[in-house]
């Protein structure tokens, strides 16, 4: 068992313990209805975090296979939420069935057998072509391009991008054992901490909206404070990575920026569809896609930067 991995997980558990205590104190202190509601939502989120951390810790400790299965399942649940909110037609049924029961398993199988060449082009090239071919066979030309583009986008976001996260375990970095899953944990901790820190800064001092037309709750103060803190956190975690402290800070900064973009893009989709959340699976958070929206933008970027530089 990797000692640094245990330290990382222990650190996350310690932060959660402190949050749980703080949440309970705030619950006693809340006086107005509005603050009670905010604190109840906060505590629901913390409870869900315990479950998410437990699942993720078990997956990490079982090594590569656990992470691959976990992220395949996350892709499945995310695509399921995405398709629910997409205006699909009856004629798309078979193409969608293929997307769930063939494309997802094959993409993660390619991670498992470490076939990087095909892994990186399967969905952007071959599924792109086959999906359009399958859809045209169904014979319905109404909104054809819109329908095929929507399904392709869902597969790129929910499957292709997410599969880069467990692919981090395959990276060949000189003098560093990627197979322990510490890079994956580094990515997930920085990206999720960035979300939480942006949310917290925004709640505490935020008042200038950064994208009022897309997400009224996101503020400049939240963005700057959250991204800065996430960058510092990334630097402080340099010891689990093959990077120097300044390089870890730089990568954490890029992870946080990509994550912010991901959250904003997914907000735009939700706004267009007239919903607040993609699902209800995670109390306080919404759906799986609401929780991993920043991860799916950050994972490919972090993977490629690490692969090309190290």
């Amino acid at each position, binding site marked *: 068992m990797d000692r640094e991995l245990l330290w990382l997980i222990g650190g996350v558990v310690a932060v959660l313990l402190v949050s749980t205590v703080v949440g309970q104190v705030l619950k006693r202190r809340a006086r107005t209805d509005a603050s009670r509601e905010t604190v109840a939502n906060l505590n629901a989120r913390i409870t869900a975090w315990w479950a998410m951390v437990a699942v993720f810790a078990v997956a990490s400790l079982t090594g590569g296979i656990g992470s691959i299965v976990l992220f395949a399942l996350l892709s499945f649940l995310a695509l399921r939420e995405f398709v*629910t909110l997409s205006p699909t037609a009856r004629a798309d049924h078979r193409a*969608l069935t293929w997307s769930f029961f063939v494309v997802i398993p094959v993409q993660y199988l390619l991670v498992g057998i470490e076939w990087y060449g095909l892994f990186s082009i399967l969905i952007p090239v071959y599924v792109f072509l086959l999906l359009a071919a399958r859809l045209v066979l169904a014979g319905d030309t109404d909104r054809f391009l819109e329908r095929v583009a929507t399904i392709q986008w869902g597969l790129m976001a929910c499957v292709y991008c997410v599969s880069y996260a467990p692919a981090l375990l395959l990276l060949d970095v000189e003098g560093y054992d990627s197979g322990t899953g510490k890079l994956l944990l580094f990515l997930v901790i920085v990206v999720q901490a960035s979300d939480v820190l942006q949310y917290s800064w925004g709640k505490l001092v935020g008042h200038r909206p950064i994208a009022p037309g897309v997400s009224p709750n996101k503020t400049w103060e939240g963005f700057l404070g959250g991204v800065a803190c996430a960058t510092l956190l990334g630097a402080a975690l340099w010891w689990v990575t093959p990077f120097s402290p300044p390089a870890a800070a730089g990568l954490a900064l890029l992870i946080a920026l990509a994550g912010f973009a991901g959250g904003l893009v997914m907000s735009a989709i939700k706004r267009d569809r007239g919903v607040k959340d993609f699902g*209800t699976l995670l109390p306080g958070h919404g759906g799986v896609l609401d929780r991993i929206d920043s991860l799916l933008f950050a994972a490919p970027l972090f993977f490629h930067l690490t692969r090309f530089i190290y």
Partner: protein
Amino acid sequence: MIGSAVAGLARLIAGGSVQWAERPTAAPRVYFANHTSHLDFVLLWSYLPPELRARTRPVAARDYWDSSRLRRYFAGEVFRALLIDRGGPDARESVDRMAECLSTGDSLILFPEGTRGTGEEVAPFKTGLFHLCRAAPAAELVPVAIENLNRILPKGEFLPVPMVSRVVFGPTLRLYDGEPKDEFLARARGALETLRETE
């Protein structure tokens, strides 16, 4: 064991939000729902607490569920379905068998539209629900609105497309003494439509 696995799989593929107007009880009940998919009853059944699940039997068409070994296995061993003949001359006998089930303490899942629709509207109810209430006046009726299953597994498809659904269990209702057939069926169908519109 197999039942729990099937329930878990149904929820993984078609699960979503579920709302209860009243807490589920063990009293013999007739859950009646709108019908658009073969997954309808599986999902409804999967949301019942396991101890109630074991005592709740879907009423299903014999011509479909008796037509292959696999279907027979699931209908008989997993769901303990009560298979009835659709549109046959023995409607009377079917109602009696359902009433008998209720009298032994089992609950039933029933689709009063009689067949699967496209999901846009709830078709007029067949009269079976009314005759069942006459034969078993003590039974509680629970309307259940099921949403989005017409997209998950529509008529004519074999494999589902996983999506998020919504299931709403409404407040119980009963047949009033002397309530005319058409009024009762309209009231029951109205209860289901009201549920479909709730947020």
